[in-house]
């Protein structure tokens, strides 16, 4: 009954990314040789992306629970409660490889995919963020990738109609052959109206919705499809093209049929399309699924079962509908001009049966497809701890002001306005703090509740010490939320690493997860969703380990958030947190002194919490007038950013005697903030910090239109701003490097 053409050869198995052992496991599981379609289904379900086979055992160590967590990892997106019956649904996902191949479409479909994950759960998307890493600016491909990726992210989000409110952009030669595109989407729903993938009920219609299926993204299987395809047609590109217009229609149609009570279960078709979504819906509900591929809307002729099962065409959904509501749901979809087709039904057999042209081309045990996927305890070696850098042994080639002027125009530190001005960040009318600050702040519905959103990671720290780097990424996300006055609630993560089959890389992965887990526990900042992207390497050279953290926090009153711009002259500038002058892995050491080395700053999680709690309280009480967390570039860069954002300068005191001046101004010690207060509040604030065990120090006062250090010529803000704003546009215009 099941055709066995062609014979499965070892080459075909390898072509599908399955090892001989994994193939053996398939044979044992089903007791016969699989059909080609079945092999394709297994390869999709058991690849790294779907099965998390290398990462699963470690991901389990992440804390995922808190009283406000409604849904942790395992669904399309994480869900947390923000009170008043409202839920925030969010997730981050990578589209690294596709973006390297075709930057515009790769990035665009990355945004499309993550948006779908969010509205599949019944939430209306309210914001997007993105974290981007590119190679050395001097590398010949970098400019092209930056231009395409940014245009693609904007092209999709702007058209879909969601504000893109934040993110980060970094450059390093280790991303030369592998750029990173991590996109995060955030949606809002009512707590009791969340939709899940779990199917219930036997004999219910399974409905296909959205765009038609084409031969998009059928990779790893080029050989097989060449043997089976129409033959004469030229080799097909595996690039998927995004259609934000269809996705916008899909959003509106989905929310409408959800509101109409038509939906039992819903799952978007992401990677491995129809296969993953159908198997997940059935397996989660302990049901079987039968699909009839002749009913699948296709946009190309001659598509085989194999191709339909593996297509990654975008803007598609699978649902289990209430049978009595089928006609109503169909009318809604037709109104929005979208395809609607009943392509199967739920069964009580726990088997995944696929029929095509009157034949059964797959008949597999549905639970085992997921549950029996291989899980690996890959061997790993711990990254050796690098030595601590002694600031006294670092020569300082430049004056502080000169170093600042140089640093502020560095690719990693300069203004990313060129990027975020290509994103509509004001649509929906709720963006209270736009890109350019520590975290974006959005009004929730009509307020006064607000949300704070950020993405963070410092890959050079992770490379030097994955454990401290993992901690630091979480701590910085938490700190960025605290710096606007928000209560940090939960994170999504996107773990980008090289080849896990290399023990050093696996060691980075394990170290980073360990650090993330420890920080999330200590800060009550659980992980509710995430994504793993491995094998980011070219010719044996891996990317810097990059565990991106997307953080979400809540404000009771968004108007009481703080921003980084100085607010008035003659206010007192306070440095919150302890400054030892940590130069290891600092940008100053790397880019001014030319030494990329040393241990990264250690993260004291108790201090993070103490200092952040104080800052948040000062913001809430209206005492802190401007706040900025201190990260890349240290105190001096933070001060410069606050000054440039406002046009108000600062008169600064000398560094304390105990710390080398360059280490004081440019060291990257963690758990620190710059806070300004009115002169009348200074004494009380200092006393309060001391009482709370929080180190605090006056570093100067706001004044004039320049930054002035004792014994150095004033740095005019205008000049600084020209450098800060100038580099990226000049680079993209081909005028520098």
């Amino acid at each position, binding site marked *: 009954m099941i055709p066995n053409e062609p014979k499965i050869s070892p080459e075909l198995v390898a072509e599908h990314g399955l090892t001989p052992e994994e193939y053996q496991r398939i044979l044992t599981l089903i007791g016969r040789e699989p059909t080609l379609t079945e092999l394709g289904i297994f390869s999709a379900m058991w690849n790294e992306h779907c099965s998390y086979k290398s990462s699963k055992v470690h991901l389990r160590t992440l804390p995922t629970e808190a009283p406000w967590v409604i849904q942790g990892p395992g669904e399309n997106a994480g869900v947390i409660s923000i009170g008043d019956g409202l839920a925030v649904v969010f997730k981050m996902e990578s589209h690294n490889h596709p973006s390297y191949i075709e930057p515009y479409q790769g990035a665009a479909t990355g945004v499309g995919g993550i948006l779908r994950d969010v509205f599949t759960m019944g939430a209306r998307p309210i914001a997007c963020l993105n974290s981007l890493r590119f190679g050395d600016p001097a590398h010949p491909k970098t400019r092209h990738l930056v231009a395409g990726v940014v*245009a693609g992210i904007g092209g999709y989000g702007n058209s879909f*109609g969601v504000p893109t409110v934040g993110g980060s952009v970094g450059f390093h030669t280790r991303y030369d052959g592998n750029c990173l595109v991590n996109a995060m989407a955030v949606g809002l729903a009512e707590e009791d109206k969340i939709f899940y993938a779990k199917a219930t009920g036997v004999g219910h219609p399974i409905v296909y919705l959205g765009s038609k299926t084409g031969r998009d993204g059928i990779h790893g299987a080029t050989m097989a499809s060449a043997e089976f395809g129409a033959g004469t047609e030229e080799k097909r590109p595996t690039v998927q093209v995004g259609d934000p*217009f269809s996705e916008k229609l899909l959003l509106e149609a989905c929310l409408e049929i959800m509101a109409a009570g038509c939906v039992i279960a819903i799952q978007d078709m992401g990677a491995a399309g129809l296969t993953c979504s159908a198997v997940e819906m059935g397996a989660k509900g302990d049901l079987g699924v039968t699909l009839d591929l002749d009913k699948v809307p296709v946009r190309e002729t001659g598509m085989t079962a194999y191709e339909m099962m593996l297509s990654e065409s975008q803007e598609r959904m699978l649902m289990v509908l209430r049978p009595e509501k089928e006609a109503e749901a169909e009318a809604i979809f037709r109104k929005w001009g979208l395809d609607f087709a009943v392509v199967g039904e739920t069964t009580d057999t726990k088997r995944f049966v696929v029929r095509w042209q009157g034949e059964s081309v797959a008949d597999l045990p549905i639970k085992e497809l997921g549950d029996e996927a291989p899980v690996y305890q890959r061997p790993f070696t711990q990254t050796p701890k690098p030595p601590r850098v002694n600031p006294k042994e670092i020569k300082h080639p430049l004056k502080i002001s000169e170093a600042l002027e140089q640093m502020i125009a560095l690719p990693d530190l300069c203004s990313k306005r060129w990027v975020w001005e*290509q994103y*509509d960040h004001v649509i*929906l*009318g709720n963006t209270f703090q736009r890109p350019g600050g520590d975290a974006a702040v959005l009004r929730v519905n009509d307020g006064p509740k607000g949300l704070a959103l950020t993405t963070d990671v410092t890959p050079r720290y992770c490379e030097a010490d994955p454990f401290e780097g993992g901690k630091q990424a979480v701590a910085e996300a938490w700190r960025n939320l605290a710096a606007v006055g928000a209560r940090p609630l939960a994170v999504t993560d996107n773990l980008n690493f090289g080849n896990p089959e290399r023990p050093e890389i696996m060691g980075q992965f394990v170290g980073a997860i360990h650090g993330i887990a420890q920080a999330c526990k200590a800060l009550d900042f659980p992980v509710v969703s995430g994504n793993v992207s491995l094998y980011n390497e070219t010719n044996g050279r891996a990317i810097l380990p990059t565990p991106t953290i997307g953080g979400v926090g809540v404000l009771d009153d968004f108007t009481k958030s703080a921003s980084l711009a100085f607010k008035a002259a003659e206010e007192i500038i306070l440095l919150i947190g302890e400054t030892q002058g940590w130069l290891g892995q600092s940008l100053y050491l790397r880019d001014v002194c030319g030494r990329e080395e040393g241990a990264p700053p250690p993260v004291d999680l108790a201090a993070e919490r103490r200092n952040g709690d104080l800052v948040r309280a000062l913001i809430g009480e209206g005492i802190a007038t401007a706040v900025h967390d201190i990260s890349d570039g240290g105190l001096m860069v933070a001060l410069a950013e606050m000054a440039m954002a406002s046009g108000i300068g600062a008169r600064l005191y000398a560094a304390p005697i105990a710390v080398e001046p360059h280490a004081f101004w440019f060291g990257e010690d963690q758990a620190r903030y710059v806070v300004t207060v009115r002169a009348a509040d200074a004494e009380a604030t200092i006393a309060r910090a001391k009482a709370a065990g929080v180190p605090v120090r006056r570093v100067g006062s706001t004044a004039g239109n320049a930054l002035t250090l004792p014994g150095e010529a004033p740095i005019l803000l205008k000049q600084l701003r020209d450098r800060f704003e100038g580099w990226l546009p000049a680079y993209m215009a081909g005028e520098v490097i």
Partner: protein
Amino acid sequence: MRAAVVVFPGINRERDMARALTLIAGRAPTMVWHADTALPEGTDLVVLPGGFSYGDYLRCGAIASRAPIMEAVRDHAEKGGLVLGVCNGFQILCEAGLLPGALLRNAGLKFICRDVHLRVERSDTPFTRGYNAGQVIRVPTAHGEGNYFASPETLAELEAEGRVLFRYTDAEGQVAERANVNGASNAIAGVLSQKHNVLGLMPHPENHVETIMGSTDGRGLFAGLVDHFVQAA
């Protein structure tokens, strides 16, 4: 003021527009579906909101301008009724021939989202009676194709007839190349139809209407319209 906001597939600033209208007019607009053929009885103002109707595929606004509801919008305009098109709405009005000219790709070839300054050229129209002539307002833009183009003759006519209602300027109200975000001819941000009853405007006043969100410079447009209908009644 009874406002009707037309919803085309792919439009995405209709909620922003409805919120602004509700806030300022004290009455929610009726949302009208593109496939309908009539406007609600007694519609005072028709609004074509911003977004990406039909994904901006083919040309911005082209497909929407041929939608069934557009006949009713045209009728409304021909009878002297007020029509406001913002961003994609402006593009639709040009494509429909209700306004002259066309909106081309931004001169910098990139989508631009930033606050811009606009000079209100005259205050004796229903759309600008909430402002003073020469007043400079700050509102956001968010578009990739807002570069207003018309033939030299048309431009001369628009200028001579005082139909350029908003112009991109610097904060002081001076026309300057740097302030012309998209390279529009004569720095045109908004134009009127011959009868002064149809306005196309590229930036988004509807996103700057609440003190609490940091700026109310866009309010004047809607407040002026409300006032116009109060006076008329």
